[in-house]
């Protein structure tokens, strides 16, 4: 019993440290073990199935900035006006500037930020419009526009921004070729830690 008491007292002293400091528990755990694949792993595990070309084609609908992935079809500015006024106008406004949601139209100077994050001043690639609209728009019925309707509404939005002519036709060839004023704005991330604030 006596031995136990002595042991407890010594544990208490060791545990508390200096009595005049607030008791803290700033115990730092050792560096995390880098949990990599075990060395005993086989070259492949084989869990999962082969993806057939048909399976890939079903979901591989994204569009790259050079136009890769754009489907066949086409649309004019006039056709796009009709799509816009039935599908888009409630959120983006009659001229693409009124909202209540994202403003689409504008070529104004940078100082207008953040309202200047518009297609005509900021978007660097016209292909992004297709990639986004065909999947995510209209907000309440996403993914319902046909390729033709999507090309058409893009033609109209680009025309409202003054980037294509009134008789423009958008398709897999013409869309990637549209020169976007925002293209040269973008620079890579140059933050890299260390003492410098970037």
């Amino acid at each position, binding site marked *: 019993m006596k031995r136990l008491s002595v042991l407890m007292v010594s544990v208490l002293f060791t545990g508390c440290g200096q009595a005049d400091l*607030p008791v803290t528990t700033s115990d730092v755990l050792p560096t995390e073990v880098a949990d990599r*694949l075990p060395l005993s792993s086989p070259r492949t595990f084989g869990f999962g199935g082969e993806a057939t070309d048909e399976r890939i084609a079903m979901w591989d609908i994204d569009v*790259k900035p050079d136009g890769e992935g754009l489907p066949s079809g086409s649309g004019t500015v006039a056709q796009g006006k009709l799509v816009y006024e039935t599908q888009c106008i409630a959120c983006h406004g009659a001229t693409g500037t009124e909202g209540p949601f994202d403003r689409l139209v504008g070529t104004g100077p940078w100082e207008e930020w953040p309202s200047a994050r518009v297609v005509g001043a900021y978007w660097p690639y016209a292909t992004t419009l297709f990639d986004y609209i065909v999947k995510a728009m209209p907000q309440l019925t*996403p993914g319902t526009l046909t390729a033709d309707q999507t090309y058409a509404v893009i033609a109209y939005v680009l025309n409202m921004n003054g980037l294509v002519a009134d008789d423009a036709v958008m398709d897999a060839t013409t869309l990637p070729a549209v020169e976007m004023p925002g293209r040269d704005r973008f620079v890579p991330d140059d*933050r890299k830690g260390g003492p410098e604030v970037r």
Partner: protein
Amino acid sequence: MAKKANPPLSRRAWITTTSGVIAAGLIKTQVDAVKIAAQEAATPAQDPTKVPGRLTSELGQRAPAEQPLRLVRSPNLSSSSRTPLQDLYGIITPADLHFERHHAGIPNIVQEEHELLIHGMVERPMVFKMADLKRYPQTSRIRFVECSGNGGGAYNRDRMPTEVTPQSLDGLLSTSEWTGVLLSTILREVGIRNGASWILAEGSDAAVMSRSVPLEKAMDDAMLAYGQNGEAIRPEQGYPVRLLLPGWEGNAQVKWLRRIEVTDRPTMTREETSKYTDPLKGGRARQFSFVMDAKSLITFPAFPYQLPDRGWWEIKGLAWSGRGKITRVDVSTDGGSSWTPAELQGPILSKSTVRFRHLWDWDGRETHILSRAVDETGYVQPTVHQLWDARGERTSYHQNHQRAWKIASDGAVTFGLGDLV
């Protein structure tokens, strides 16, 4: 009417519970009666030592008086909710309080039917069911996730807020123990072809939200996460599987992940061009600014708390860095004139939040308290002036500058950065 001490089974409870269940034949013994009384009769007014307590349950609940909530600003149109940072202890965010940010609502996904397709510049294009993914070697890591727009409400010189809470200002930050399979394990399985340098990660939500991610990160510490704090990942966080990119902005950590395409260039999706890019001075904009730089926030004392008296108070908060470990947090109690290293509470984990604490003997005079985090790269959480100088005053995203709270002489706490700029 004077109230007597409650008997083990009050007369009212007995009547209440017996009226229905005697007829049903449920009360057969005194033990049954006590069980029912324990389940139905306890009220806070009763002496808990004089009435049997509630029995076990299949799913636990918070104490009735402890009901922290996410902050939802406009329930009808909301696409984000914020974690109540001021209400939490330690570093782990309870899964039901993890912040939300989504672009077209939370999809309703049946796990058994969910598939992840990996294709593009790979040797073996594959489709994985969740059962397949879960059979691969599993790992767990404690990591923060933060929206890169978090805290942007305290950047504009002309619109500095005063009545913001840690939750309303910086609540798009949460920390979880994530469980899943390393993405590098799965990419090894499909075999990366020469020349590949990016992946496209795509979600199964109504926006089919997608982001391009450098292959280097995918092969480093990226994870396909299906677990969160010991349970299946919550629908709001990407059930049944999300991409976890430790230390990187939340938007790139695609939830409800259904497809990864290995490519040799970025796809330039809407979220990496028109959104989540950071305007700079001179008409430029920073793109693919993935890493969340070091940041800290005092969560106590903070608005709307009022210190009831002078004397000893423990300043508490969180610090985190997307570049590794926090090595130091300094606290100032004199508006930034002098700084003292705070106590860091273990565990100090890479790309995780860490708790800091600083004991402060408040003399009752008006002042401002601030914190600044330092990470293992030597980066020091900047002042807002430093960010203004580096990026301009009209940038957005990644606004990780030092925050300040004003302590008035009556103890009232408000957001005080506006007083210091």
